[in-house]
């Protein structure tokens, strides 16, 4: 037969291999399908994956089921989920979705959202009062809840207590931004006289970025409101931008930008900046990445904008959603509750991540009250938990990226103006630019024909 095959033996074997591998692939797929888990949970966070891996056997034992746990990169998770929903192919039963990505899935009419509406389940099982209220906002669209919050992520400042004490500054007195800036002027130092400042008060991105967003959030200014309306164009935004501009540019600035990863850790070790913005998750990164600073770091609530004002903000978030295509939604809900509303497990998980869960019942556990050696004996969990009820709500939108870009544009135009002309006409310029930015975002949003319908 091989001899009779046209073009000789090689094409014959190519065809044979193609057919053979197809049969093998089909057969192994069948076997894999038989061994498939009853529930599949996909997450993007390595720490979550490790923590869930430990506790899932208990859930499997309780319910007599098998749970498949997948770890997928954050960007890949979103893209794959989008594509799977688009193509109508298989999706996990439960998915942990990162901050800023729910908007894509809730862009269309509510009936088309690919996630299960959890509003009734949360209400009927009386979970709402037991969870930090503000944390629902991120996962809501038009008043409906599509994921349960994993975390609170209250923001504090982490600081080099040894250096601050050496300068004779009492951190407890830095309770307003005004006091903070005044102290910051004393901190600025050029040790070697080369004209480059070697010590700054705080690490803030000079282009706005997360620093500006966190401070706007602290003042209750979000990009979008609960109904998806634009909310960033308010007088307080102008004030905050001017303040931020003065602290990050010009001769009187009190900040520098320390970047991320290794450069951030080097800056911390060198004492390039004394204060660093640190939500709960970042406090963990700091303690693992710069262990040599053990006992030299402390936490401080954010200074308030006015005496007695809010001392925190939020940065980031993860939510757990159940896909509408899941054939076992009740079982998936049981798993969600097991992972997110099980105080014992949350205590253990806190010690491994420093991430404060929004489930308030857990906060009395010993793990949350334990003093942290790294943070000079401060009770890390209790410190963050104290601020959690104050955290402001933040609503996500499919247009968050567009709005962020526009707000950043406004700030950078203000920087350009300030560097050339100083404060003269600065506020007016920011207001004009904010008006234009709002108008642009509204124009983009107005294109969404289907999103307007319920």
């Amino acid at each position, binding site marked *: 037969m091989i001899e009779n095959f046209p073009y000789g033996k090689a094409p014959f074997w190519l065809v044979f291999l193609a057919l053979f591998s197809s049969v093998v692939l089909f057969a192994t797929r069948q076997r894999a399908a038989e061994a498939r888990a009853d529930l599949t949970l996909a997450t993007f966070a390595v720490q979550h994956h490790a923590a869930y891996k430990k506790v899932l056997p208990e859930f499997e034992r309780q319910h007599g089921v098998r749970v498949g746990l997948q770890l997928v990169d954050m960007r890949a998770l979103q893209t794959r989920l989008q594509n799977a929903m*688009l193509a109508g192919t298989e999706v996990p039963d439960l998915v942990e979705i990162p901050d800023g990505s729910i908007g894509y*899935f809730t862009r269309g009419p509510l009936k088309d959202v690919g996630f299960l509406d959890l509003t009734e389940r949360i209400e009927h099982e009386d979970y709402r009062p037991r969870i930090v209220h503000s944390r629902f906002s991120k996962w809501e669209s038009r008043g409906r809840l599509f994921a349960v919050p994993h975390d609170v992520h209250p923001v504090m400042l982490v600081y080099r207590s040894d250096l601050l004490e050496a300068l004779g500054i009492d951190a407890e007195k830095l309770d307003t931004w005004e006091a903070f800036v005044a102290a910051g002027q004393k901190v600025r130092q050029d040790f070697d006289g080369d004209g480059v400042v070697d010590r700054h008060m705080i690490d803030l991105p000079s*282009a706005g970025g997360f620093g500006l967003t966190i401070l706007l959030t602290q003042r209750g200014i979000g990009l979008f409101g609960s109904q998806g309306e634009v909310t960033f164009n308010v007088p307080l935004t102008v004030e905050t931008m001017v303040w931020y501009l003065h602290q990050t540019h010009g001769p009187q600035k009190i900040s520098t930008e320390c*970047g991320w990863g290794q*450069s951030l850790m080097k800056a911390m070790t060198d004492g390039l900046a004394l204060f660093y913005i640190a939500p709960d998750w970042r406090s963990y990164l700091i303690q693992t990445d710069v262990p040599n600073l053990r006992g030299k770091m402390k936490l401080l609530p954010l200074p308030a904008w006015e005496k007695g004002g809010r001392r925190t903000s939020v940065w980031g978030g993860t939510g757990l959603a159940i896909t509408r295509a899941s054939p076992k939604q009740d079982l998936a809900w049981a798993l969600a509750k097991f992972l997110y509303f099980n105080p014992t497990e949350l205590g253990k998980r806190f010690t491994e991540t420093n991430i404060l869960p929004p489930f308030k019942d857990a906060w009395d556990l010993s793990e949350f009250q334990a003093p942290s050696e790294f943070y000079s004996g401060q009770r890390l969990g209790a410190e963050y938990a104290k601020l959690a009820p104050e955290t402001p709500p933040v609503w996500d939108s499919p247009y968050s990226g567009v709005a962020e870009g526009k707000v950043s544009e406004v700030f950078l135009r203000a920087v350009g103006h300030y560097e050339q002309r100083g404060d003269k006409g600065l506020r007016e310029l920011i207001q004009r630019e904010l008006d234009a930015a709002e108008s642009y975002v509204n124009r983009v949003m107005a294109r969404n*024909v289907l999103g307007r319908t319920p």
Partner: protein
Amino acid sequence: MSAPKQLYRGWAPWLLLAPYLAITLVFTLYPLLNAAVLAFYQTNGPVSRVFVGLGNFRFLLTDPVFYKALWNTCVFAVCSVFLQLPLSMALALLLNSGNDRLKGFFRLVLFSPNLVGQIFVGILFSVLFTPRYGLINRFVQELTGWGLEEQWLGNPALVMPAIVLTGLWVYVGFNMIYFLAALQGVDKSLEEAARIDGANRLQVFWNVTLPSMRHVVVFVVVTSIIGSFQLFELPLSLLPASNGRGPDNSGLTVISYLYEVGFNSGDLGLGSAVGWVVALIILAISTLQIRLSGAAEEA
């Protein structure tokens, strides 16, 4: 010829071509046609869509952010052609005149950035561009007395230069390989004859060497421009916090814009329209270049 053999001859080519045809049909032709249709729809998230006619194109052509993305992409493309390619050519000429052992070594060294992914390159350069501690900042400071604290990836004026610099590191060696191969195919006797006739090095290069490798040059220019218009991973990995946009959209490219509207904002219809506009731009530029080079050849 026997009957079974004739039968084989009839279907065997189709059978062998079948995998390629199936893959092309499913993964190239179908998406292409589907994208053409989708460009006339507005999609909202993964499920819903509504016909909007030319609405997507109308929006696109009046969107300042798209123009910003187009401008950034064109700047990168111009730098590719006028910075990258001359550098590649210079390196190729240098290597072509060196001894064979060194040639092989430097060819590998200069080509090696291509052996790593663009994401890796982006992450590497984001460390090199770190204010105060980054190697590039320190090097520039030592050289010029400026730049230690510069925010290459935070200052809108410096973002595109940073992307171009990173692109240079990746692509110069890649294009050099093409030029080197073309140089080795140039007829040495023609160059020799020109030299005997009194032409200097520059004249030999300009009048003999370059025309002899014109086809490769046109190919490299066209592929560089196409590659520049597809720029996506580098800004994304250099500026991950803003999804590759950078401050004031200074790092936004047309493909990043496409990704943003299609996959972050959820309007695949608008994303498809962007894709088609980019395809038409590339087609127009490439056609123009090929025509111009053809005209030059005829002249």
